[in-house]
Protein backbone atom coordinates (compact mmCIF):
# COMPACT_ATOMS: atom_id res chain seq x y z
CA UNK A 1 0.00 0.00 0.00
CA UNK A 2 1.08 3.59 -0.42
CA UNK A 3 1.02 6.15 -3.16
CA UNK A 4 3.63 5.60 -5.86
CA UNK A 5 4.40 9.17 -6.74
CA UNK A 6 6.35 10.36 -3.70
CA UNK A 7 7.86 13.48 -5.26
CA UNK A 8 4.90 15.67 -4.42
CA UNK A 9 1.73 15.76 -2.40
CA UNK A 10 1.06 14.95 1.21
CA UNK A 11 3.60 12.16 1.56
CA UNK A 12 6.42 14.47 0.48
CA UNK A 13 5.39 17.05 3.06
CA UNK A 14 4.62 14.68 5.94
CA UNK A 15 7.43 12.22 5.30
CA UNK A 16 7.21 8.76 6.82
CA UNK A 17 5.01 9.85 9.71
CA UNK A 18 1.79 8.87 7.92
CA UNK A 19 0.71 6.19 5.47
CA UNK A 20 -1.43 7.35 2.61
CA UNK A 21 -3.49 4.97 0.56
CA UNK A 22 -6.58 4.89 -1.60
CA UNK A 23 -9.88 3.16 -0.98
CA UNK A 24 -9.27 1.12 -4.13
CA UNK A 25 -6.04 -0.23 -2.71
CA UNK A 26 -7.47 -0.98 0.72
CA UNK A 27 -10.42 -2.83 -0.81
CA UNK A 28 -8.04 -4.60 -3.18
CA UNK A 29 -5.93 -5.62 -0.22
CA UNK A 30 -9.01 -6.92 1.56
CA UNK A 31 -10.18 -8.83 -1.47
CA UNK A 32 -6.90 -10.47 -2.34
CA UNK A 33 -6.54 -12.11 1.07
CA UNK A 34 -10.13 -13.19 1.32
CA UNK A 35 -11.08 -15.32 -1.66
CA UNK A 36 -14.05 -17.55 -0.98
CA UNK A 37 -13.69 -20.35 -3.48
CA UNK A 38 -16.28 -22.02 -5.62
CA UNK A 39 -14.58 -25.30 -6.52
CA UNK A 40 -16.03 -26.40 -9.87
CA UNK A 41 -14.36 -29.80 -9.93
CA UNK A 42 -15.13 -32.26 -12.69
CA UNK A 43 -12.15 -34.56 -13.12
CA UNK A 44 -8.77 -35.86 -12.03
CA UNK A 45 -7.22 -32.44 -11.24
CA UNK A 46 -9.56 -32.53 -8.26
CA UNK A 47 -7.16 -34.97 -6.59
CA UNK A 48 -4.42 -32.40 -6.86
CA UNK A 49 -6.79 -29.69 -5.69
CA UNK A 50 -7.38 -31.71 -2.52
CA UNK A 51 -3.66 -31.65 -1.95
CA UNK A 52 -3.66 -27.87 -2.47
CA UNK A 53 -6.47 -27.41 0.02
CA UNK A 54 -5.21 -30.02 2.47
CA UNK A 55 -2.73 -29.76 5.31
CA UNK A 56 0.44 -30.36 3.29
CA UNK A 57 0.14 -27.30 1.02
CA UNK A 58 -2.67 -25.46 2.81
CA UNK A 59 -4.34 -22.83 0.62
CA UNK A 60 -5.72 -21.27 3.84
CA UNK A 61 -2.35 -19.56 4.32
CA UNK A 62 -3.43 -17.13 1.59
CA UNK A 63 -6.80 -16.64 3.23
CA UNK A 64 -8.51 -18.60 0.46
CA UNK A 65 -9.62 -21.61 2.47
CA UNK A 66 -13.34 -21.29 2.70
CA UNK A 67 -15.27 -23.07 -0.05
CA UNK A 68 -18.78 -21.61 -0.48
CA UNK A 69 -21.01 -23.90 -2.48
CA UNK A 70 -23.49 -21.12 -3.03
CA UNK A 71 -22.17 -19.06 -5.98
CA UNK A 72 -23.68 -15.91 -4.40
CA UNK A 73 -21.10 -16.02 -1.64
CA UNK A 74 -18.08 -17.09 -3.71
CA UNK A 75 -15.46 -14.74 -5.19
CA UNK A 76 -13.15 -17.08 -7.07
CA UNK A 77 -14.45 -19.68 -9.49
CA UNK A 78 -11.81 -22.39 -9.58
CA UNK A 79 -12.48 -24.58 -12.61
CA UNK A 80 -10.70 -27.88 -12.09
CA UNK A 81 -10.79 -30.70 -14.61
CA UNK A 82 -11.96 -31.39 -18.14
CA UNK A 83 -14.94 -29.31 -19.24
CA UNK A 84 -17.02 -31.02 -21.91
CA UNK A 85 -19.49 -29.20 -24.10
CA UNK A 86 -22.27 -30.70 -21.97
CA UNK A 87 -20.74 -29.00 -18.92
CA UNK A 88 -20.38 -25.56 -20.49
CA UNK A 89 -23.97 -24.36 -19.84
CA UNK A 90 -23.64 -25.41 -16.19
CA UNK A 91 -20.32 -23.62 -15.80
CA UNK A 92 -21.78 -20.54 -17.50
CA UNK A 93 -24.76 -20.61 -15.15
CA UNK A 94 -22.58 -20.85 -12.06
CA UNK A 95 -20.47 -17.95 -13.31
CA UNK A 96 -23.57 -15.84 -13.98
CA UNK A 97 -24.92 -16.63 -10.51
CA UNK A 98 -21.80 -15.38 -8.74
CA UNK A 99 -22.03 -11.96 -7.11
CA UNK A 100 -19.59 -9.25 -8.25
CA UNK A 101 -16.65 -8.98 -7.97
CA UNK A 102 -15.74 -12.38 -9.34
CA UNK A 103 -12.62 -13.97 -10.74
CA UNK A 104 -11.99 -17.15 -12.70
CA UNK A 105 -9.07 -19.45 -12.14
CA UNK A 106 -8.27 -22.00 -14.89
CA UNK A 107 -6.73 -24.99 -13.15
CA UNK A 108 -5.00 -27.58 -15.33
CA UNK A 109 -4.29 -28.11 -19.01
CA UNK A 110 -7.84 -29.23 -19.91
CA UNK A 111 -9.39 -26.05 -18.56
CA UNK A 112 -6.71 -23.85 -20.11
CA UNK A 113 -6.85 -25.29 -23.65
CA UNK A 114 -8.69 -28.61 -23.70
CA UNK A 115 -5.39 -30.34 -22.99
CA UNK A 116 -4.94 -33.72 -24.60
CA UNK A 117 -8.68 -33.96 -25.33
CA UNK A 118 -8.49 -32.39 -28.77
CA UNK A 119 -11.79 -33.90 -29.86
CA UNK A 120 -15.47 -33.23 -30.60
CA UNK A 121 -16.72 -33.50 -27.00
CA UNK A 122 -14.37 -31.26 -25.03
CA UNK A 123 -14.38 -27.48 -24.78
CA UNK A 124 -11.03 -26.15 -26.00
CA UNK A 125 -10.43 -24.03 -22.91
CA UNK A 126 -13.03 -22.24 -20.79
CA UNK A 127 -11.81 -18.86 -22.06
CA UNK A 128 -13.97 -19.57 -25.10
CA UNK A 129 -16.96 -18.60 -22.94
CA UNK A 130 -15.66 -16.96 -19.72
CA UNK A 131 -13.11 -14.23 -18.97
CA UNK A 132 -10.25 -16.10 -17.28
CA UNK A 133 -7.91 -14.23 -14.91
CA UNK A 134 -5.22 -16.82 -14.27
CA UNK A 135 -4.16 -19.83 -16.32
CA UNK A 136 -2.30 -22.60 -14.55
CA UNK A 137 -1.32 -25.36 -17.00
CA UNK A 138 -0.14 -28.82 -16.05
CA UNK A 139 -1.62 -32.27 -16.05
CA UNK A 140 -2.25 -31.87 -13.17
CA UNK A 141 -0.41 -28.71 -12.05
CA UNK A 142 1.79 -29.01 -8.98
CA UNK A 143 0.43 -27.25 -5.88
CA UNK A 144 3.40 -24.87 -6.06
CA UNK A 145 2.24 -23.79 -9.52
CA UNK A 146 -1.26 -23.21 -8.21
CA UNK A 147 0.06 -21.00 -5.43
CA UNK A 148 2.18 -19.12 -7.96
CA UNK A 149 -0.98 -18.54 -9.98
CA UNK A 150 -2.90 -17.53 -6.86
CA UNK A 151 -0.22 -15.00 -5.91
CA UNK A 152 -0.28 -13.56 -9.43
CA UNK A 153 -4.04 -13.23 -9.10
CA UNK A 154 -3.52 -11.48 -5.76
CA UNK A 155 -1.26 -8.96 -7.51
CA UNK A 156 -3.95 -8.38 -10.14
CA UNK A 157 -6.64 -7.92 -7.51
CA UNK A 158 -4.49 -5.54 -5.47
CA UNK A 159 -4.14 -3.12 -8.37
CA UNK A 160 -7.63 -3.38 -9.80
CA UNK A 161 -9.68 -0.26 -10.50
CA UNK A 162 -13.30 -0.05 -9.39
CA UNK A 163 -14.19 0.87 -12.95
CA UNK A 164 -13.50 -2.75 -13.94
CA UNK A 165 -16.68 -3.84 -12.13
CA UNK A 166 -19.28 -5.08 -12.69
CA UNK A 167 -18.09 -7.64 -15.14
CA UNK A 168 -21.60 -8.79 -16.00
CA UNK A 169 -22.80 -12.09 -17.38
CA UNK A 170 -20.80 -14.47 -19.55
CA UNK A 171 -20.38 -13.99 -23.29
CA UNK A 172 -23.06 -16.47 -24.33
CA UNK A 173 -26.59 -17.11 -23.14
CA UNK A 174 -27.75 -20.54 -22.03
CA UNK A 175 -29.54 -21.12 -25.36
CA UNK A 176 -26.45 -20.32 -27.41
CA UNK A 177 -24.38 -22.84 -25.47
CA UNK A 178 -26.78 -25.73 -26.01
Amino acid at each position, binding site marked *: *MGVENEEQGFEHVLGDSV*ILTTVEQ*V*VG*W*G*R*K*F*SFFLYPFITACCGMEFMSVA*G*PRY*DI*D*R*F*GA*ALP*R*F*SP*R*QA*DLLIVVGTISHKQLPILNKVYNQM*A*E*PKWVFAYGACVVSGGMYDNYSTAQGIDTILPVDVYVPGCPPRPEMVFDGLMKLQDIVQNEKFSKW*PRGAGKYTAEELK
Partner: protein
Amino acid sequence: MDITLIPGYQYMPELVEMMLKIVFIFTMNVGVFAPLLGYVERKQSALMQDRIGANRAAILGFTIFGLWHTMTDAIKLIAKEDFIPEGADKPLHFLAPFVAVVPALIAFAVIPFGGTYYLWGHEAHLIIADLDVGILFIFAVAGIGTYGAVIAAWASNNNWSLLGGVRTAAQMVSYEVAMGLTIVGVLMVYESLKLTEIALIQEDFFMWGIFLQPVGFLLFLACALAENKRVPFDIPEAESELIAGYFTEYSGLKFAMFWMAEFVEIVTISAILTVLFFGAWHIPFVTHDGLLSLLTSVVGADIGNLLLMFIHLAVFWGKVCFLIVFLMLIRWSLPRFRYDQIMKLGWKIILPLALVNILATGVILLVVK
Protein backbone atom coordinates in the same frame (compact mmCIF):
# COMPACT_ATOMS: atom_id res chain seq x y z
CA MET B 1 -24.40 26.36 36.70
CA ASP B 2 -25.19 23.89 39.44
CA ILE B 3 -25.35 20.41 37.99
CA THR B 4 -28.00 19.36 40.51
CA LEU B 5 -30.49 21.75 38.88
CA ILE B 6 -30.75 19.60 35.75
CA PRO B 7 -34.03 17.65 35.84
CA GLY B 8 -33.51 13.97 36.50
CA TYR B 9 -30.06 14.63 37.94
CA GLN B 10 -30.41 11.88 40.53
CA TYR B 11 -30.87 9.28 37.77
CA MET B 12 -27.70 10.29 35.91
CA PRO B 13 -25.41 7.67 37.53
CA GLU B 14 -27.89 4.88 36.73
CA LEU B 15 -28.18 6.13 33.15
CA VAL B 16 -24.43 6.33 32.69
CA GLU B 17 -23.98 2.89 34.26
CA MET B 18 -26.67 1.42 31.99
CA MET B 19 -25.19 2.98 28.86
CA LEU B 20 -21.72 1.74 29.80
CA LYS B 21 -23.01 -1.79 30.34
CA ILE B 22 -24.90 -1.87 27.04
CA VAL B 23 -21.90 -0.49 25.16
CA PHE B 24 -19.65 -3.02 26.90
CA ILE B 25 -21.84 -6.01 26.01
CA PHE B 26 -22.37 -4.76 22.45
CA THR B 27 -18.64 -4.20 21.99
CA MET B 28 -17.77 -7.57 23.47
CA ASN B 29 -20.18 -9.40 21.18
CA VAL B 30 -20.09 -7.53 17.89
CA GLY B 31 -16.71 -5.83 18.17
CA VAL B 32 -14.58 -8.48 19.85
CA PHE B 33 -16.09 -11.93 19.75
CA ALA B 34 -17.83 -11.97 16.35
CA PRO B 35 -14.69 -11.15 14.33
CA LEU B 36 -12.36 -12.96 16.70
CA LEU B 37 -14.34 -16.20 16.59
CA GLY B 38 -13.92 -16.26 12.82
CA TYR B 39 -10.19 -16.11 13.40
CA VAL B 40 -10.29 -18.65 16.24
CA GLU B 41 -12.33 -21.05 14.15
CA ARG B 42 -9.82 -20.77 11.33
CA LYS B 43 -6.75 -21.17 13.47
CA GLN B 44 -8.22 -23.88 15.67
CA SER B 45 -9.22 -25.93 12.65
CA ALA B 46 -5.74 -25.36 11.22
CA LEU B 47 -4.21 -26.56 14.48
CA MET B 48 -6.45 -29.62 14.61
CA GLN B 49 -5.76 -30.50 10.97
CA ASP B 50 -2.01 -29.95 11.26
CA ARG B 51 -2.09 -26.91 8.98
CA ILE B 52 -0.66 -23.41 9.36
CA GLY B 53 -3.80 -21.45 8.61
CA ALA B 54 -4.26 -17.91 7.37
CA ASN B 55 -1.06 -15.93 7.87
CA ARG B 56 -0.29 -13.93 4.71
CA ALA B 57 -2.12 -10.61 5.14
CA ALA B 58 0.33 -8.08 6.55
CA ILE B 59 0.43 -4.38 7.33
CA LEU B 60 3.97 -2.95 7.25
CA GLY B 61 5.32 -6.47 7.39
CA PHE B 62 3.48 -7.47 10.56
CA THR B 63 1.15 -10.43 10.14
CA ILE B 64 0.27 -10.78 13.88
CA PHE B 65 -0.44 -14.51 13.43
CA GLY B 66 -2.90 -13.91 10.61
CA LEU B 67 -5.21 -11.66 12.64
CA TRP B 68 -5.47 -9.23 9.70
CA HIS B 69 -7.42 -11.87 7.84
CA THR B 70 -10.48 -11.05 9.92
CA MET B 71 -10.11 -7.48 8.64
CA THR B 72 -9.61 -8.53 5.02
CA ASP B 73 -12.72 -10.72 5.25
CA ALA B 74 -14.73 -7.80 6.59
CA ILE B 75 -13.47 -5.44 3.85
CA LYS B 76 -14.18 -8.03 1.18
CA LEU B 77 -17.71 -8.73 2.44
CA ILE B 78 -18.56 -5.02 2.70
CA ALA B 79 -17.31 -4.43 -0.85
CA LYS B 80 -19.20 -7.42 -2.24
CA GLU B 81 -22.31 -7.07 -4.38
CA ASP B 82 -25.50 -7.13 -2.32
CA PHE B 83 -27.56 -9.59 -4.28
CA ILE B 84 -31.35 -9.90 -4.16
CA PRO B 85 -32.68 -12.73 -6.32
CA GLU B 86 -35.40 -12.30 -8.90
CA GLY B 87 -38.86 -13.00 -7.47
CA ALA B 88 -37.64 -12.53 -3.91
CA ASP B 89 -39.68 -10.73 -1.28
CA LYS B 90 -37.40 -7.71 -0.99
CA PRO B 91 -38.43 -6.28 2.42
CA LEU B 92 -38.34 -9.71 4.06
CA HIS B 93 -35.09 -10.60 2.31
CA PHE B 94 -33.59 -7.44 3.80
CA LEU B 95 -35.11 -7.97 7.24
CA ALA B 96 -34.13 -11.61 7.80
CA PRO B 97 -30.43 -11.17 8.74
CA PHE B 98 -31.37 -8.57 11.35
CA VAL B 99 -34.02 -10.86 12.81
CA ALA B 100 -31.31 -13.50 13.10
CA VAL B 101 -28.69 -11.29 14.79
CA VAL B 102 -30.72 -9.09 17.15
CA PRO B 103 -32.28 -11.80 19.38
CA ALA B 104 -28.87 -13.36 19.99
CA LEU B 105 -27.66 -9.95 21.21
CA ILE B 106 -30.78 -9.16 23.24
CA ALA B 107 -30.56 -12.44 25.13
CA PHE B 108 -27.40 -11.07 26.71
CA ALA B 109 -29.42 -8.38 28.49
CA VAL B 110 -30.47 -10.75 31.29
CA ILE B 111 -27.17 -12.56 31.71
CA PRO B 112 -25.17 -11.32 34.72
CA PHE B 113 -21.47 -10.89 33.95
CA GLY B 114 -20.45 -9.76 37.43
CA GLY B 115 -21.81 -9.18 40.92
CA THR B 116 -22.63 -6.01 42.85
CA TYR B 117 -19.90 -3.46 43.58
CA TYR B 118 -19.91 -0.22 45.61
CA LEU B 119 -17.96 2.37 43.64
CA TRP B 120 -17.68 5.84 45.19
CA GLY B 121 -21.12 5.70 46.77
CA HIS B 122 -22.72 4.19 43.67
CA GLU B 123 -24.02 0.64 43.60
CA ALA B 124 -23.14 -1.04 40.29
CA HIS B 125 -24.84 -4.25 39.19
CA LEU B 126 -23.12 -5.96 36.29
CA ILE B 127 -26.28 -7.01 34.51
CA ILE B 128 -28.29 -4.95 32.04
CA ALA B 129 -31.80 -6.04 33.06
CA ASP B 130 -32.21 -8.18 36.18
CA LEU B 131 -35.51 -9.83 35.27
CA ASP B 132 -37.31 -12.17 37.67
CA VAL B 133 -37.95 -14.53 34.74
CA GLY B 134 -34.45 -14.20 33.29
CA ILE B 135 -34.04 -17.70 31.93
CA LEU B 136 -37.53 -17.71 30.40
CA PHE B 137 -36.72 -14.41 28.68
CA ILE B 138 -33.69 -16.05 27.07
CA PHE B 139 -35.80 -18.91 25.72
CA ALA B 140 -38.43 -16.51 24.45
CA VAL B 141 -35.90 -14.36 22.61
CA ALA B 142 -33.99 -17.37 21.27
CA GLY B 143 -37.30 -18.54 19.80
CA ILE B 144 -37.50 -15.33 17.78
CA GLY B 145 -34.06 -16.04 16.31
CA THR B 146 -35.57 -19.01 14.49
CA TYR B 147 -37.72 -16.60 12.49
CA GLY B 148 -34.57 -15.06 11.02
CA ALA B 149 -33.67 -18.31 9.29
CA VAL B 150 -37.23 -19.15 8.29
CA ILE B 151 -37.94 -15.67 6.90
CA ALA B 152 -34.64 -15.74 5.01
CA ALA B 153 -35.59 -19.09 3.50
CA TRP B 154 -39.07 -17.98 2.53
CA ALA B 155 -38.04 -14.61 1.12
CA SER B 156 -35.26 -16.02 -1.08
CA ASN B 157 -37.60 -17.73 -3.56
CA ASN B 158 -35.22 -20.66 -3.80
CA ASN B 159 -35.96 -24.35 -3.31
CA TRP B 160 -32.77 -25.08 -1.40
CA SER B 161 -33.39 -22.12 0.88
CA LEU B 162 -36.93 -23.23 1.56
CA LEU B 163 -35.83 -26.78 2.39
CA GLY B 164 -33.22 -25.34 4.74
CA GLY B 165 -35.83 -23.10 6.35
CA VAL B 166 -38.24 -25.98 6.90
CA ARG B 167 -35.47 -28.04 8.43
CA THR B 168 -34.51 -25.10 10.66
CA ALA B 169 -38.06 -24.74 11.89
CA ALA B 170 -38.38 -28.45 12.61
CA GLN B 171 -35.04 -28.67 14.40
CA MET B 172 -35.50 -25.49 16.44
CA VAL B 173 -39.00 -26.37 17.60
CA SER B 174 -37.95 -29.90 18.55
CA TYR B 175 -34.95 -28.81 20.54
CA GLU B 176 -36.63 -25.84 22.21
CA VAL B 177 -39.03 -28.26 23.89
CA ALA B 178 -36.19 -30.45 25.11
CA MET B 179 -34.09 -27.43 26.09
CA GLY B 180 -36.84 -25.98 28.23
CA LEU B 181 -37.18 -29.28 30.09
CA THR B 182 -33.43 -29.80 30.61
CA ILE B 183 -33.27 -26.51 32.48
CA VAL B 184 -36.13 -27.37 34.87
CA GLY B 185 -33.81 -29.48 37.03
CA VAL B 186 -31.49 -26.50 37.51
CA LEU B 187 -34.42 -24.28 38.47
CA MET B 188 -35.63 -26.86 41.00
CA VAL B 189 -32.23 -27.04 42.66
CA TYR B 190 -31.72 -23.26 42.90
CA GLU B 191 -35.41 -22.46 43.44
CA SER B 192 -35.21 -19.38 41.23
CA LEU B 193 -35.63 -18.22 37.65
CA LYS B 194 -33.53 -15.14 38.32
CA LEU B 195 -30.06 -15.56 36.86
CA THR B 196 -28.39 -13.30 39.44
CA GLU B 197 -29.78 -15.43 42.29
CA ILE B 198 -28.68 -18.63 40.57
CA ALA B 199 -25.22 -17.11 40.14
CA LEU B 200 -24.99 -15.92 43.77
CA ILE B 201 -25.78 -19.37 45.17
CA GLN B 202 -22.83 -20.72 43.17
CA GLU B 203 -20.35 -18.73 45.22
CA ASP B 204 -19.87 -22.03 47.05
CA PHE B 205 -17.76 -24.20 44.73
CA PHE B 206 -19.75 -27.36 45.56
CA MET B 207 -23.00 -25.66 44.62
CA TRP B 208 -21.93 -25.22 40.99
CA GLY B 209 -24.55 -26.44 38.55
CA ILE B 210 -22.19 -28.96 36.99
CA PHE B 211 -22.04 -30.85 40.31
CA LEU B 212 -25.71 -30.54 41.20
CA GLN B 213 -27.07 -31.18 37.71
CA PRO B 214 -24.49 -33.16 35.67
CA VAL B 215 -27.11 -34.87 33.51
CA GLY B 216 -28.95 -31.60 33.04
CA PHE B 217 -25.68 -30.00 31.91
CA LEU B 218 -25.00 -32.63 29.24
CA LEU B 219 -28.57 -32.49 27.92
CA PHE B 220 -28.59 -28.69 27.90
CA LEU B 221 -25.24 -28.64 26.09
CA ALA B 222 -26.58 -30.96 23.38
CA CYS B 223 -29.73 -28.85 22.97
CA ALA B 224 -27.78 -25.60 22.91
CA LEU B 225 -25.51 -27.00 20.18
CA ALA B 226 -28.57 -27.97 18.18
CA GLU B 227 -30.11 -24.51 18.63
CA ASN B 228 -26.86 -23.02 17.38
CA LYS B 229 -27.29 -24.79 13.99
CA ARG B 230 -23.59 -25.62 13.67
CA VAL B 231 -21.86 -28.95 13.00
CA PRO B 232 -22.86 -31.62 14.08
CA PHE B 233 -26.38 -30.14 13.99
CA ASP B 234 -25.97 -28.09 10.80
CA ILE B 235 -28.70 -29.89 8.91
CA PRO B 236 -30.40 -26.54 8.03
CA GLU B 237 -27.19 -25.53 6.25
CA ALA B 238 -26.02 -28.98 5.05
CA GLU B 239 -23.58 -27.96 2.30
CA SER B 240 -23.56 -31.38 0.66
CA GLU B 241 -27.36 -31.47 0.38
CA LEU B 242 -28.72 -27.91 0.33
CA ILE B 243 -25.77 -25.84 -1.06
CA ALA B 244 -25.89 -23.38 1.85
CA GLY B 245 -29.36 -23.96 3.29
CA TYR B 246 -31.48 -21.01 4.28
CA PHE B 247 -28.87 -18.37 3.34
CA THR B 248 -28.11 -19.76 -0.14
CA GLU B 249 -29.32 -16.54 -1.81
CA TYR B 250 -27.48 -14.14 0.48
CA SER B 251 -24.22 -12.47 -0.45
CA GLY B 252 -21.82 -10.00 1.07
CA LEU B 253 -22.57 -8.41 4.39
CA LYS B 254 -26.01 -9.98 4.84
CA PHE B 255 -24.49 -13.41 4.50
CA ALA B 256 -21.87 -12.36 7.03
CA MET B 257 -24.66 -11.32 9.40
CA PHE B 258 -25.95 -14.90 9.54
CA TRP B 259 -22.44 -15.93 10.49
CA MET B 260 -22.30 -13.20 13.05
CA ALA B 261 -25.59 -14.46 14.49
CA GLU B 262 -24.06 -17.91 14.84
CA PHE B 263 -20.97 -16.55 16.55
CA VAL B 264 -22.94 -14.31 18.90
CA GLU B 265 -25.12 -17.31 19.72
CA ILE B 266 -22.00 -19.26 20.65
CA VAL B 267 -20.99 -16.49 23.04
CA THR B 268 -24.51 -16.34 24.48
CA ILE B 269 -24.65 -20.11 24.94
CA SER B 270 -21.25 -20.09 26.63
CA ALA B 271 -22.39 -17.27 28.92
CA ILE B 272 -25.59 -19.12 29.85
CA LEU B 273 -23.60 -22.30 30.51
CA THR B 274 -21.18 -20.29 32.66
CA VAL B 275 -23.96 -18.74 34.72
CA LEU B 276 -26.02 -21.91 35.17
CA PHE B 277 -23.33 -24.57 35.53
CA PHE B 278 -19.87 -23.06 36.02
CA GLY B 279 -20.30 -20.66 38.91
CA ALA B 280 -20.72 -17.47 36.84
CA TRP B 281 -18.07 -14.91 37.91
CA HIS B 282 -16.99 -16.76 41.10
CA ILE B 283 -13.50 -18.13 41.62
CA PRO B 284 -13.57 -21.62 43.20
CA PHE B 285 -13.01 -21.54 47.00
CA VAL B 286 -12.73 -17.71 46.99
CA THR B 287 -15.72 -15.81 48.34
CA HIS B 288 -16.79 -12.35 47.22
CA ASP B 289 -16.46 -10.85 50.72
CA GLY B 290 -13.16 -12.61 51.45
CA LEU B 291 -11.44 -11.26 48.34
CA LEU B 292 -13.04 -7.84 48.84
CA SER B 293 -11.77 -7.47 52.42
CA LEU B 294 -8.29 -8.52 51.28
CA LEU B 295 -8.30 -5.96 48.45
CA THR B 296 -9.81 -3.27 50.71
CA SER B 297 -7.07 -3.73 53.27
CA VAL B 298 -4.44 -3.20 50.57
CA VAL B 299 -5.83 -0.43 48.32
CA GLY B 300 -8.94 0.96 50.07
CA ALA B 301 -12.65 0.32 49.65
CA ASP B 302 -13.39 2.04 46.33
CA ILE B 303 -10.32 0.91 44.42
CA GLY B 304 -10.75 -2.53 46.02
CA ASN B 305 -14.29 -2.78 44.68
CA LEU B 306 -13.11 -1.64 41.28
CA LEU B 307 -10.29 -4.19 41.25
CA LEU B 308 -12.68 -6.92 42.35
CA MET B 309 -15.01 -5.94 39.52
CA PHE B 310 -12.24 -6.31 36.96
CA ILE B 311 -11.12 -9.62 38.48
CA HIS B 312 -14.68 -10.96 38.30
CA LEU B 313 -15.08 -9.70 34.73
CA ALA B 314 -11.86 -11.46 33.77
CA VAL B 315 -12.98 -14.67 35.47
CA PHE B 316 -16.39 -14.59 33.80
CA TRP B 317 -15.07 -13.90 30.30
CA GLY B 318 -12.27 -16.40 30.87
CA LYS B 319 -14.81 -19.12 31.57
CA VAL B 320 -16.82 -18.01 28.53
CA CYS B 321 -13.70 -18.20 26.33
CA PHE B 322 -12.91 -21.67 27.65
CA LEU B 323 -16.42 -22.87 26.80
CA ILE B 324 -16.24 -21.25 23.36
CA VAL B 325 -13.06 -23.16 22.59
CA PHE B 326 -14.75 -26.31 23.82
CA LEU B 327 -17.77 -25.73 21.56
CA MET B 328 -15.45 -25.08 18.61
CA LEU B 329 -13.64 -28.31 19.43
CA ILE B 330 -16.93 -30.18 19.09
CA ARG B 331 -17.64 -28.37 15.81
CA TRP B 332 -14.37 -29.52 14.24
CA SER B 333 -14.45 -33.06 15.66
CA LEU B 334 -17.84 -34.50 14.78
CA PRO B 335 -19.46 -35.26 11.42
CA ARG B 336 -22.96 -34.05 10.64
CA PHE B 337 -25.95 -36.02 11.94
CA ARG B 338 -28.51 -37.26 9.49
CA TYR B 339 -31.89 -35.53 9.63
CA ASP B 340 -33.75 -38.51 11.16
CA GLN B 341 -30.93 -38.99 13.68
CA ILE B 342 -31.35 -35.40 14.85
CA MET B 343 -35.08 -35.85 15.28
CA LYS B 344 -34.58 -39.17 17.06
CA LEU B 345 -31.99 -37.65 19.38
CA GLY B 346 -34.26 -34.76 20.24
CA TRP B 347 -37.58 -36.49 20.76
CA LYS B 348 -36.64 -40.04 21.75
CA ILE B 349 -33.47 -39.57 23.80
CA ILE B 350 -33.05 -36.05 25.17
CA LEU B 351 -36.71 -35.40 25.95
CA PRO B 352 -37.31 -38.60 27.99
CA LEU B 353 -33.94 -38.21 29.72
CA ALA B 354 -34.83 -34.65 30.66
CA LEU B 355 -38.12 -35.83 32.14
CA VAL B 356 -36.33 -38.59 34.09
CA ASN B 357 -33.84 -35.97 35.27
CA ILE B 358 -36.66 -33.78 36.57
CA LEU B 359 -38.21 -36.76 38.40
CA ALA B 360 -34.89 -37.83 39.91
CA THR B 361 -34.09 -34.26 40.98
CA GLY B 362 -37.50 -33.97 42.63
CA VAL B 363 -37.09 -37.26 44.52
CA ILE B 364 -33.60 -36.34 45.73
CA LEU B 365 -34.75 -32.87 46.82
CA LEU B 366 -37.63 -34.44 48.77
CA VAL B 367 -35.31 -36.94 50.46
CA VAL B 368 -32.68 -34.33 51.33
CA LYS B 369 -35.12 -31.82 52.85
